[in-house]
């Protein structure tokens, strides 16, 4: 279903297929349940407003999880060596989020990738790096 990229076909600057998704409040509730993270900022609108937020907002780890999904579809499940991100901005319901994953280095079978998640205006939500060992 998802065929990982092959090492011999990869070059620096190559990009992974983009995963795009319009965030809904249901996504936040599903992630809360699946992760066990019930911080009310992610599902309880009155509490989010009381905390001076414009609405509920997405879990940072949901953003990283979406990037992780696009990443494993590209490098293959079980290929990751490291995966790290900085959470730059909150995500909001109705935002159209897209992944951007770019090969930045290839050393033997170890591939380094720049990983990002941004909205339709190009505002970056998550920025980071991953390394993976790819088969030829």
């Amino acid at each position, binding site marked *: *279903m*998802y065929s990982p990229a092959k090492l011999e076909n990869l070059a620096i600057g190559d990009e992974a297929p983009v*995963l795009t*998704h319009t965030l809904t409040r249901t*996504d936040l509730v*599903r*992630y809360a*349940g*699946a*992760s*066990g*993270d019930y*911080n009310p*900022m992610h599902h309880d609108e009155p509490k989010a407003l009381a*905390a001076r*937020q414009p609405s509920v907002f997405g*879990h*940072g*780890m*949901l953003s*990283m*999880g*979406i990037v*992780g*999904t696009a*990443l*494993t*579809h590209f490098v293959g*499940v*079980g290929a*990751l*060596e*490291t*995966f*790290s*991100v*900085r*959470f730059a901005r909150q995500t909001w319901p109705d935002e159209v989020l897209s992944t951007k994953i770019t090969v930045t280095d290839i050393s033997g079978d170890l591939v380094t990738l720049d990983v990002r998640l941004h909205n339709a205006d190009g505002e970056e939500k998550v920025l980071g790096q991953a390394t993976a060992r790819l088969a030829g």
Partner: protein
Amino acid sequence: MVERSALAFFASAVLDDDPVYTSADEASARGFEAIPAPPTFPFVMQNWGAFAELQAEGGQGAGLGMVLGPLMANGGLILHGEQAFVYHQPVLAGQTLTGVGVIKDAYVKESKGTTMTFVVAETTWSDASGAPVVTTTFNIIHRK
């Protein structure tokens, strides 16, 4: 204990429809001994399968709650600053893993009447033989 249904539920929550997370046959065909975990699942896996009989004498169960609980009880807003994973071997359904958490750093900054508390914590998960499986590091900011 890494539970299969928790892996499938988590995969759906991060928008991953790869059948490797829902079909034992697919996982086997891809070379896994059991259903594997999505890459960010280790951040939350202490919330699933932490059965009472598995806990070590004096063990604390969910370590993240020990850090976040007192901060959340204090009100304010908790933001996740950074997150990192180092993968040593696949996390698989059916494994019983032991997590050991360490606070790597903690400090407070005052700025314009706002108190910012920074905490960096690292958890290393090991399998029954003691071999490391995955290391997770998180950096959170509590703002009040």
